[in-house]
Every structure is written in C-alpha cells, then in structure tokens.
C-alpha cells in the first residue's frame, strides 16, 4: 500500500509531461456529444495509462493540472467542480498501479479485466457522485441537469479509458522486455 503513493523524480516528471499531453488532447482531440457541455474526451484514456504506469498521485495531478490548464486557456478560468472530479478519477485509476503485469510486458485477460474494473469505478465515482455534487454545492446548478451531464460524462469516459486506455496499455506492454525472455542454451 505504501508503495502506491511513493513519489520519486520519475513520477514528478511523468506528471508534468503527462499533464501537458492531457491538456493538448483535452483541447484538440475530442468529439462533441449530444448532451450540451460534455464531449467524448480521449484525454481520459491517456490519464488512465499514466495512472496505471505511475500511480494514483501522478494520475490525480495529471488530470487535475491538465483539466485546469485547458479550461484556463480556453475559458480564462477553470470550472473547479469538474476539475476536482477529473483529479478524483485519475486518482482512482492509479489503483491499477502495480496490480497488473504491464511492466513485465504482459497485458492480457485478467490484467485487462482488473484495469477496466478499476477505471469504471473511478469514472462512476468521479462523474456521477463528485462532479454533480460539487456543481450543486459550488455553483447551485439545477439538480437534474448536473446528473444528466454527469452520467453522460461517466459513460463516455468509461469508453474512452476502457478502449483507448486498454489499447495504449497493450501497446506499452509490447515495448517492455518480457520476464524470462532469455533462456540459457
């Protein structure tokens, strides 16, 4: 458990650069959805990948900084409730850290299942609970509106993290050297 929250230089650098890609994807690589003010964000696939590779702290900071920065660039001011929810989702994605064998070059069956269960839990908590509740507390938005937006966001981010995150993790595992790939003749 203690290992999960260890922060070394690599975690910090990965956070900084991960947040930069997150910002880029969040602004440019997205598809608008029929429910206003929500869209299919590929950025959550990226945050799921980085969270699985570098842990909850990195995951939370990447989504938090990335979301806040892209909001600030586009609108001049971050929409805090959703920025915090992003951070929460990244934090929960991070619990997949060291639970899969991706660093040993294997990401199949059971690992994919573990990763996806964690990301679905993370997305549901962040978008169906945290984001709408904060919207009501901070901004006093209408209740049914924020829950509709939240549920839409949860579904789309589950797909984003599930499909894009899984594909990226498989691609990443392929670049790792497999354990026991050398044999003595």
């Amino acid at each position, binding site marked *: 458990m203690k290992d999960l929250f260890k922060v070394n230089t690599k975690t910090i650098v990965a*956070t900084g650069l*991960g947040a930069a890609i997150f910002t880029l994807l969040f602004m440019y690589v997205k598809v608008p959805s029929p429910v206003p003010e929500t869209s299919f964000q590929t950025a959550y696939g990226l945050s799921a990948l980085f969270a699985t590779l570098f842990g909850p702290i990195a995951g939370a900071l990447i989504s938090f900084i990335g979301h806040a920065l892209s909001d600030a660039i586009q*609108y001049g001011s971050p929409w805090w409730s959703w920025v915090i929810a992003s951070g929460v989702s990244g934090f929960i994605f991070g619990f997949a850290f060291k639970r899969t064998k991706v660093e040993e070059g294997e990401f199949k069956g059971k690992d994919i299942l573990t990763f996806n269960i964690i990301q679905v839990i993370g997305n549901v908590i962040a978008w169906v609970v945290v984001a709408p509740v904060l919207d009501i507390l901070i901004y006093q938005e209408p209740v049914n509106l924020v829950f509709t937006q939240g549920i839409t966001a949860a579904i789309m981010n589950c797909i984003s993290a599930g499909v894009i995150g899984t594909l990226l993790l498989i691609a990443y595992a392929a670049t790792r050297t497999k354990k026991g790939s050398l044999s003595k003749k």
Partner: protein
Amino acid sequence: MNMKMKLFSYNLADTPIHRLSGLTKLICFLFLTFAVMYSYDIRVTLAVMVFSILLMWVSKIRFSQVRLMVIYVLIFIVTNAVISFFFSPEYGTTIYGTSHEFAKIFGISLTYEQLFYQVTKMFKYASVIPLGMIFLLTTNPSEFASSLNGIGVNYKAAIAVALTLRYFPDIQRDYHDIYLSQQARGLELSSKAKFFDRFKNSLLIVIPLIFSTLDRVEVISNAMDLRGFSKNKTRTWYTSRKLSRQDVLALVVSGLIFIATVCVSVFINQSRFYNPFI
C-alpha cells in the same frame, strides 16, 4: 485546429499589476474568484465584475489578446442558460419561494424568479473570466511554480506544474510534426475522410506522441536525479520575490472584498441568494 494559439500569451509590460509578485496575484485571484463563486447576489457579482474590468484596463490588456476566450465563454454561458432553463424552468421559484408569472410558452410558465436566477448566474460566470484573464496574461509562467509553492502546495507538485508549462509548447510542436509526417505517409486527416476514420487516424498520431514522451520522461528524470532533485524537504526559487508594499495592499483589498462578500451573504441576505421578491 489552431496551432498558433500561444499558451499564456504573457506580455511583458510595466503596469502596477505586472509589478505585483506572482504569489500576490495567485492569492488575489483565488480570493476574488471564491468570492463570486460563493455569492449568488447580483450586486456583489456586478461590483466584482466592474472592479476586475477596471483592473484589466490598468494592466493594459488589449481586446485582441482575449478575443478567442471571450467567444468561448459567450458560447458556454449561452448554452448553459438555455439548457438549464429546459432542464428545470421552475428552479428559480424553488430558490426564491415565490412565483410571479409573466408569460407562457409551450405550456412552460416563465417567471420573474427564473429570469432573475438565470441573469444572476450569467453574470456570476462572466465575472470570473476577467480575473482569470488578468492572472494568466500578467503572470510570468516561470514565477507561477514558486507562487504555488508559496501558498503551501508541495514543491514537487509545483515543479510538476512548471514542467507542464515548460513542455506544453514542445509537445504541441511534436504533435504537429507527427500530424504532418503521418499525412505525408498517406494517413487521411482532412475533411475528405469519413468522420470515424478521421477520429481513428487522429488517435494514430497520439500513440507515437505518448511513446516519445515516455522516453523523454526517462531522460529528464535522470537529469534531475543527477542534479540532486528532491533530496531536501524544501527548495528555494530563482524567480521568487519579496513582497512589496503594493503586494500587501493588493492582498488586503482582495481579502476585504472576500470577507465583505461572505458578510453580505451571512448578515444581509441570510443565504447565498439575494432575494428581491420578499
């Protein structure tokens, strides 16, 4: 895709706002935005809005610098107003406890309460924007990390933010390079391709971008480790400044505005909403 959009198009000018330290501006920004975020009183919101537009004028921000943001924000505010009306046209009545109907469309009654709630909300969201713009356009990006550390954020997280700001233009350029080279290889990304193909192909740009970044993470973290990064509990900052008298003044003024806002809500309105209907 607007690749020319510069991040933090910070311009060096010599105005009273630019001379404030980054730490002061961050704290003032937080005070003032929390004030308007907390209050649902249109008088408070308008006062802060006038004040922040005045500050914008003082800091010599030209309209051309913020035009794009203003457009985005207007779109956001208008869609927000329209959908929150259609999702709950009675919300104003619930909040203010009275109902003064003045018209009816498609069986939905329009009340003054709903109108007042929505107008208040529009100004509430609009008034945060000038503050954000002033903060972004007058703060030196390299001073930002030390300011974050100054308000108590762990310096490792502050360094992560500094790295994001430092590498965002690089990653944007890499993205653009990969985009062009993939097109040269025959990947269709223009509007001629079908929507789904275009989306799939734009993901094919993202994959090399992510893997080259992961390599870069190794290089940068090794370099930082070799220089002894994170050996101590605290660190000093090259760009941090001592607080001057103007800084103290700015902090006191924004602190007072924040306290005044909370007092208006607690003592005058007795809630977060200003209710003119009783």
